[in-house]
């Protein structure tokens, strides 16, 4: 006990009685030390409180969640001939008894509605949307749509999209060109899902780049939504936004829009190397024989990377019309070009195989190795 008393007295003496008598660096050191001790205590206390609160909330929410799941399970069992509006009106009084003024309960209910809506379609999904609207759960999401915080806007957009609330499309369209990338992509996904008549309108207005990551996500969303109207994507190949061009190229390939082939050929000379490379690749995968002469003509002045793409594409088309051209590059001084030319020759099946045999007999050791490599079925690119 005496130790604590003397320690207390010493600290009082150090921090109060003698405080002004210390040199400046000691005064500052004492202050920094004090701040650090307060900081450490605060951090450790925060960790403790956080864990305790989470434990309590988890326990409390588990009971509520169970109750809400049961209520939703009851509402989902109805006859096909029942009107969704009537079904909802029947159950509304029970849901209204929930203390929805509490945000945690509202959150659980919305999350369960979303999860069920995702798993059901048709009338069941309609019933869930109807319930969501009649309980006025959309009010908060609509309000958050106007929030100054991007993460609240994202949550609102997600909620409205999942619950298929379509009347906020115009507002969402504005966010498709937002400078916050995550908000932008969420808005683009939402717009594509909600605005069924003209889901690609956002491509006309988007000035910000559709990042590769976003293209990938949008591509998956679009190609997995079967009911969507699909325009002629070649329309956007003249866009000033290169990322829009790049994105539309992928969709042209996926939907095999052959009428876009002339536009793709035009892109062989695009200033952006990525677009040029993508266009060339797609011409190959769409087996655009009409592009062969253009590819051969453009070949000479291209960087190595594009030359390789052109050769790959000629291999994919494999019409036989370019075998002589490929043969001339099978001895190119650049290794990647040589390899690509030999691969392209191999893609010509019988005629290619014959040419490779001839090349093999004439080739030097390294080229023989390339031919062997290309012919080995166990080695895949």
């Amino acid at each position, binding site marked *: 006990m005496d130790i604590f008393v003397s320690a207390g007295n010493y600290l009082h003496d150090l921090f109060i009685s003698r405080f002004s008598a210390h*040199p400046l*660096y*000691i005064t*500052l*050191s*004492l202050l*920094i*030390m004090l701040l*650090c*001790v307060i*900081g*450490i205590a605060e*951090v*450790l206390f*925060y*960790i403790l409180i*956080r*864990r305790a609160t989470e434990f309590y909330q988890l326990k409390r929410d588990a009971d509520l969640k169970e109750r809400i799941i049961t209520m939703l399970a009851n509402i989902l069992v109805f006859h096909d001939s029942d009107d969704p509006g009537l079904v909802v009106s029947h159950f509304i009084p029970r849901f209204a008894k929930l203390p929805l003024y509490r945000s945690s309960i509202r959150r659980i209910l919305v999350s369960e509605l979303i999860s069920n809506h995702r798993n059901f379609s048709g009338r069941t999904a309609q019933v869930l949307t109807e319930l969501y609207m009649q309980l006025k759960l959309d009010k908060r999401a609509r309000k958050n749509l106007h929030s100054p915080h991007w*993460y609240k806007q*994202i949550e609102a957009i*997600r909620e409205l999209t999942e619950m298929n609330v379509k009347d906020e499309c115009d507002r969402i369209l504005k966010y498709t060109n937002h400078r916050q*990338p*995550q908000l932008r992509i*969420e808005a683009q996904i939402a717009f594509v899902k909600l605005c069924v008549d003209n889901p690609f309108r956002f491509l006309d207005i988007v000035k910000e*780049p559709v*990042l*590769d*990551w*976003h*293209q*990938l*996500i949008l*591509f*998956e*969303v679009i190609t997995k939504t079967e009911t969507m109207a699909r325009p002629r994507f070649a329309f956007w190949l003249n866009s000033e936004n290169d990322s829009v061009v790049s994105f539309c190229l*992928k969709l042209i390939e996926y939907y095999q829009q052959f009428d876009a082939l002339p536009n793709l050929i035009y892109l062989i000379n695009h200033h952006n190397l990525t677009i040029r490379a993508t266009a060339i690749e797609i011409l190959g995968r769409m087996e655009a024989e009409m592009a062969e002469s253009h590819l051969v003509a453009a070949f000479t002045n291209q960087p190595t990377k594009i030359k390789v793409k052109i050769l790959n594409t000629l291999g994919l088309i494999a019409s036989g019309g370019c075998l002589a051209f490929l043969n001339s590059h099978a001895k190119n001084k650049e*290794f*990647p070009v040589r*390899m690509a030319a030999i691969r392209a020759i191999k893609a010509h099946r019988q005629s290619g195989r014959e040419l490779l045999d001839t090349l093999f007999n004439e080739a030097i050791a*390294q080229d023989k*190795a*390339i031919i*062997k*490599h*290309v012919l*080995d079925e*166990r*080695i*895949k*690119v």
Partner: protein
Amino acid sequence: MSTFESIVNNSIFFYALLLILSVVTIVFISSFEINKYLRTNSYINYKELLVSPHAPSISVISPVFNIEEAVVNHVRALFALQYNNFEIIIVNDGSTDNTLEKLKEFYQLENVNFAVYEQLKTQAVHSYYKSKNPAFAKLTVIDKAFGGKPDALNAGLNTSEKELTLCIEVDCFLDKNSLLKLVKPFLENKKRVIAAGTAVHVANSSGRNKGHLLNAKFPGKLLPGLQALEYFKWFLIERLTSSSLNGAHVITGAAGLFDKEILIQSGGYSLKALKEGFELIVRMCRYMHDNGLQYRVVFIPDPLCWVEAPANLKALAKQRKQWAGGNSQIFWLNKDLFFNKNYGLLGLVHFPYWFLHEWITPFFKVITLFLLGALAVTGKINWEYLCILFLMIYFFAVLLSAISVLYEEKSYRQYSSSTDIFRIVALIFVAPVIYHPLTVYWKVMAYIRVKN
């Protein structure tokens, strides 16, 4: 108080203040960054990337040397990575045991005729192997003469035909979503991303089976525990800040994803570098600057890689001395970077800061101790003031560790049991007293040896 003592005390204080202010700035930046990262990533679903035909292609390159017992499980763990467009290149770097035979037997390998575009010079490659079993079509094994890890990685790079390259160490455990998470920065930046690194955690007490990590547990022993705590600080505070300022932060050798084209054009892995990961990143950054190309080096704080930390003093000392020697080498080789405005933030901020933090500070600490010793011997010391100065430094170090633990708690919370938390909290108070002086000692010894 003598003038000399006053000078010593003042210099200790003001140098400590300079460091404290720089660290506080870093803490603020990292706090902002981690919140931003966690918030943004809470909306991310990697499912689309997993199934996408447009996901960039990756080569996972792993050099192996004399690990016959572990090699099969190591490759098995790589096969379990979640990604649809990747290949595995195992480079047997002149093993003298049965490493290659084990691989050949288990994965049904047979010799293939491989033509390689040899952009990087390496030791002679004896042969290339592919599996006759289509289930292992992703696997390529290179058997080459011994040349060390960097040489083996270069051989792997020559063989790779993919866009990105993940270079890993054999003793690390990768999270199965590592590729998905590491690829994302390459797809979402307006500037070209040349490398992405991830946080490393200590796996010493964690459960594992056949190359997979089963459950995360905070190390039970003192030394690995202290290192685990240090890793929180490095990864969740320092590297996150460096990444946000686009610094050429260290991409750990344990797991780093690189833009293969830039990696090769920068010259690949250096055979002479003591800290090859850091040296490579600095060289890649220089290459981008020299060619007027905009770039980003990204760090993601997700705990994707788990390593076995040295469990005894001897091994730890060896590791730390090697790292410190590597730092010295990098500072010396890139001395023209210091305050060179042509290299932007890299030359003006990052390099000088690293030098101050990694090189000057340990020496300053040692010199200060000598001076204080001299003062004590001559009896010209105010012990009370000295204790106050040391306590300030101690509590600041404790606070810094506590903040890094807080970040871990708020973000990924790898260690959820109460025992782990109590252990971590206890180590926070112990680390500045026993661990920190040791690391300083090892650094100084390494610097002196390199200088000599």
